[in-house]
C-alpha cells in the first residue's frame, strides 16, 4: 500500500542524526553499509566493472565533501547522505505497485524487491538521491535503516544499530526514535539545532543533520622573524638571510 500510514499512537519514528561537526569524511559508514546490505534485506548491491576503468555500483550511503566559507573562515564539511525515511515520502506515493512502502509502526521506508517492477519513478520523486537502481537485479535499492539488524534478537543489544552507526569512528552518527522526546537523537537535535535537508520540498525528513559549530578556536598568529635566542651568531645569520646588511 503506497498511501502513507496515518500516525498511530505509540508509533516510533526511527532515523539518524548525523553530526556534521564531528564527521571526518572517512567513508567508513558508506563502506560498512555496503558490506552489511550487500547480503541483507537489500542485497545484492551489484557492482559493475569493480576492477575496470569505470567502476560503478549500487551504494545506499554516499559521503559528499563541501567547502563552506572562504579564506580564514573556510572549512571543509563532510556530508554523508542516505535515506531520511521522510514523513511524507513521495517516493512511496508515486510507486505504482505497492513495492515502496512506509512502515506504520516505526516509519522505515522500504522496497519489496518481489513487487518492484523497476520503473525508477521513486528515484525521480526523491529530492535527495537516496534511491539507486540496480540494473542487474532490475529493482530499486535503498537504505533500510538496517531493519535486518536493529531488531535482531541474536545480536548483542549494543549492536542493534544500523551498520553505518556502528562503524563511525567519531560517533558522528546516532540512531534512535524521534517520536520519543527523551531519546538521544531528540535531545541532540534540540541541543544542537538539528536541521532538515531541503525542508522546502515538504517531505519532512525524519533524520536530521547537526550543523558544524561556528565557534573556531581563535589561533594566535604565528610569530615571524623572532630573533629569539639572543645568540649573536644566529642573529647575524637571521639578518643575513633576511637580506638586511649586517
Amino acid at each position, binding site marked *: 500500500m503506497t498511501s502513507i500510514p496515518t500516525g498511530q499512537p505509540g508509533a516510533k519514528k526511527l532515523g539518524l542524526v548525523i553530526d556534521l561537526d564531528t564527521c571526518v569524511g572517512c567513508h567508513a559508514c558508506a563502506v560498512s553499509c555496503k558490506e552489511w546490505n550487500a547480503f541483507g534485506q537489500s542485497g545484492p548491491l551489484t557492482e559493475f566493472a569493480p576492477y575496470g576503468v569505470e567502476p560503478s555500483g549500487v551504494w545506499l550511503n554516499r559521503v559528499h565533501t563541501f567547502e563552506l566559507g*572562504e579564506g580564514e573562515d573556510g572549512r571543509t564539511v563532510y556530508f554523508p547522505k542516505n535515506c531520511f525515511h521522510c514523513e511524507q515520502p513521495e517516493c512511496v506515493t*508515486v510507486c505504482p505497485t505497492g513495492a515502496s512502502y512506509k512502515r506504520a509502526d516505526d516509519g522505515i521506508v522500504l522496497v519489496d524487491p518481489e513487487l518492484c517492477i523497476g520503473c525508477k*519513478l521513486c528515484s525521480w520523486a*526523491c529530492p535527495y538521491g537516496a534511491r539507486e537502481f540496480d540494473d542487474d537485479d532490475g529493482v530499486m535499492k535503498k537504505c533500510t535503516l538496517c531493519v535486518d539488524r536493529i531488531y535482531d534478537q541474536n545480536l548483542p543489544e549494543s549492536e542493534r544499530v544500523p551498520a553505518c552507526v556502528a562503524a563511525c569512528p567519531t560517533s558522528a552518527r546516532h540512531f534512535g526514535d524521534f517520536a520519543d522526546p527523551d531519546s538521544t537523537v531528540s535531545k541532540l537535535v534540540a541541543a544542537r539545532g538539528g536541521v532538515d*535537508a531541503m525542508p522546502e520540498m515538504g517531505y519532512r525528513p525524519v533524520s536530521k543533520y547537526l550543523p558544524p559549530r561556528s565557534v573556531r578556536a581563535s589561533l594566535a598568529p604565528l610569530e615571524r622573524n623572532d630573533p629569539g635566542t639572543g645568540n649573536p651568531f644566529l642573529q647575524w645569520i637571521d639578518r643575513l638571510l633576511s637580506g638586511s646588511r649586517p
Partner: protein
Amino acid sequence: MHPAPSIIAFTTFSGIGYGLLVWIGVLAPAGVLPLGRSFAAASLALALAFISVGLLSSTVHLGHPERAWRAFSQWRSSWLSREGVSAVVTYIPALLFAALWLLDDTDGLWIALGFLAAAGSIITLICTAMIYQSLKPIRQWHNPWVLPNYLMLAGMSGALWLLAMVAAFGGVPASILILTAALVLAAMGGKIAYWQSIQRGTTRSTLASATGLPAGKPLRPLDPPHTEENYLLKEMGYRIARAHAVKLHRIALALGFAVPLVTLASAPLLRGGMITALIVFAGAISATAGILIERWLFFAEATHTVALYYRGNSTAVV
C-alpha cells in the same frame, strides 16, 4: 533527466494515439467523418496501434516488464498506476466502438461508446502529464504548463493524423482543417509559454537548503563521493549543451508546428486528391518528428535537485 528513448516513444506515440481516438470518438458520431467501414477500420487501427506501440515501449523502460501488471494496484496514490488503469480500461469502449462501427450498428450505444473512448483517452493523457507535473524535485516538470502541453500536443498530433486518414479516404472537410490548424497554433503557443516559463524559473532549493548549511556563506562541492558516474548522475544528472538546446528548440518548432501549418494552409488550394493526401500526411509525419524532439528536450532540459549535491548551485546547462 536522462532522455530514455523508451519513454520518449511511449509519451509521443501514446499521445498521438489517444489524441486520434478522442477526435474519432467525438467527430464520427458528430457526422463529420466518413462513415464507411474501411475508414473506421483504418483510422481506429491506426489509433490503437499508436497507443499499443506507446504502451509496449513504456515496458521496455522497466527492470521487470513481466511484473508490469502489478502497476494497476496503487491508483489511490500513484499517477503512474492511474495511467495504467486508465489506459487498459480505455481499450474496452474503443474496441466496442470499433466493433459496432464495423457492424454498421451506429446508433445511440455506438455514440456513447465513442464519447467514453474519448473520455478515457483524455483521462489517460491527464495521468501521463501528472506523472511528471507532480514531481517536486524536478522544477521543469513541476510546472503548470506541463499538463496543458501534453493535452494540446496529443490533441494536435491526433488531429493531424486524423486529417491524413480523412484525406486518404477522399476530401478534407474545412471544419477539420480549421480545427487542426487552431490546435497546432494553441499547442505551439503552449509550448513556447512553457519554454519561457522554465527559462525564467529558478529552483527553490540550493546547496545550502539541501545540506542545511548556512545560506549566507559561499558553499561549493569539493570532492564527489565517488570517482565515476553512478546511477544518480546517469539518470538525473543529464546535461544538455546550451547551444544544442537552442538549435533543437528551433527544429522542434519548425517540424512540430511550422511545417504542419504550411501543409494545412496549402491543403485547400490543392482541391483534394492524392496530392492533398500526401501533403497532409507529410504534415502529420513532420509533427510526429517535431514532438519526438520536443519530448527529448522535455527530459534533457529537466534538472533534478540531487544534482545540487554534485554540482552545487551552478546551472544544469553546460
